[in-house]
């Protein structure tokens, strides 16, 4: 099941440049929350802080508190690898392991963690591919075809299946459909809608219509600050802050 995420006074830097300033927000479980804002506003940095991907950049650091259910993401003794297992991530460009089969792509995370039970792996691979709405398209080629042989939209759903295989609580998506055609984009958006039943979804998007279509809540970031965070319909019809209104109506950005 999805879990709640509580962010308190989160700050992040790249070297001396502060990329996030005092972000505080509560993300509800089993909902999709969209993060919008112009390029460089810190939205990708924000989601990367949620699963400690941010610190993989040289010179990058973060301060503040992120709680995912009962886990203190930046607590002492918490291993980043455990955080990332519970908080999966899907990136803008589909990045399947190119030489691995579809099956191996999905099961890679589990096998890396020493999971060897073949029968259980079969079950998890099927379940993950079904959850990612890809099973029917690839079930006959699981071990014959490589991840790279799939279309862009299928590759992205494969990456989603790979992220789901380790049974995370949260799924972070950084522009998951921006490199896809409209049909593949619709499939990903439908998928996000279904995934909310079992996961908490946080999606970074440049496409405001996409945010409006898939997310119940939307956060607007500008210059590393959280300007407004509210129900999506409120943000897109009557935003409270002039800067939000100016951005979503295309008056700047």
């Amino acid at each position: 099941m999805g879990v709640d995420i509580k962010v308190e006074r989160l700050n992040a830097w790249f070297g001396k440049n502060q990329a996030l300033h005092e972000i505080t927000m509560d993300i509800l479980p089993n909902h999709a929350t969209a993060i919008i804002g112009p390029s460089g506003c810190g939205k990708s940095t924000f989601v990367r802080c949620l699963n400690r991907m941010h610190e993989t950049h040289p010179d990058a650091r973060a301060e503040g508190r992120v709680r995912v259910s009962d886990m203190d993401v930046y607590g002492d003794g918490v291993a980043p690898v455990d955080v990332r297992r519970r908080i999966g991530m899907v990136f803008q460009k589909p990045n399947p392991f190119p030489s691995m089969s579809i099956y191996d792509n999905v099961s890679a995370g589990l096998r890396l963690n020493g999971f060897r039970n073949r029968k259980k792996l079969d079950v998890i691979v099927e379940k993950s591919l079904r959850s990612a709405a890809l099973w029917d398209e690839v079930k006959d080629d699981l071990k014959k075809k490589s991840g790279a042989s799939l279309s862009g939209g299928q590759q992205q759903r494969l990456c989603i299946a790979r992220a789901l295989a380790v049974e995370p609580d949260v799924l972070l998506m950084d522009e998951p459909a921006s490199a896809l055609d409209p049909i593949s984009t619709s499939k990903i958006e439908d998928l996000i809608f279904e995934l909310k039943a079992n996961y908490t979804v946080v999606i970074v998007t440049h496409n405001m219509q996409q945010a409006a279509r898939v997310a119940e809540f939307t956060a607007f970031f500008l210059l590393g600050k959280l300007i407004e965070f509210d129900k999506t319909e409120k943000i897109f019809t009557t935003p409270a802050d002039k800067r939000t209104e100016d951005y979503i109506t295309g008056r700047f950005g």
Partner: protein
Amino acid sequence: MTRTRFHQGLEELKQRLLIMGGLAEQAVDRAVQAYVTRDLPMCHKVLEDEKTINASEREIDEIAVDLLAMQQPMAVDLRFLFSVIKINADLERVGDQAVNIAERVIDMSKFAVAELPVDIARMASIASGMVHQSLEAFIEEDADLAQQVLERDDIVDAINRDAFESLTQVMQSDSSSTRQALDALIVARNLERVADHATNIAEDVIFWVRGADVRHHGVS
């Protein structure tokens, strides 16, 4: 400023709606003038002008739907387009009320002039003034001015109620004036509807400018 073409489109829509508003307002003024002076050529002018208003309504709807489909407006722009579509329909209905009044005047002209206890000119001045003021609120993006329009609707409603009572009495007491009184009653009713449309327009201006729904006294 980005999305220049889109914002030019919104500006064009605003201009067209104002022209349409001017036509609707003029139609009511002409119809009432025709009532006061029993001016039949003026009545026919009102009937003729309705075609222009109807054509204008269709054009505005087309532009608005195109902008919705092509530009996916958000926030204040979305509220603006939503309001324009509704105001457009209300203005077209104002034009219809002017036609209804002109038709009553044509009917009344077949009978001798009767002295009737209803001040149509005063009622028209308030109702038409409300249309004017609601359009001014639209031009100025002034929700406070629009609020004043809402408050004046009660005055027109009261005059209409009084007209109903007094004209009913005329019908009961003087059968030779029944037809004239009935026509005047319908004209009063038409003007009351004009004021209602002005109220709707004012509510839409408030929704556009403030994002607040004040219809039906804000009851959801």
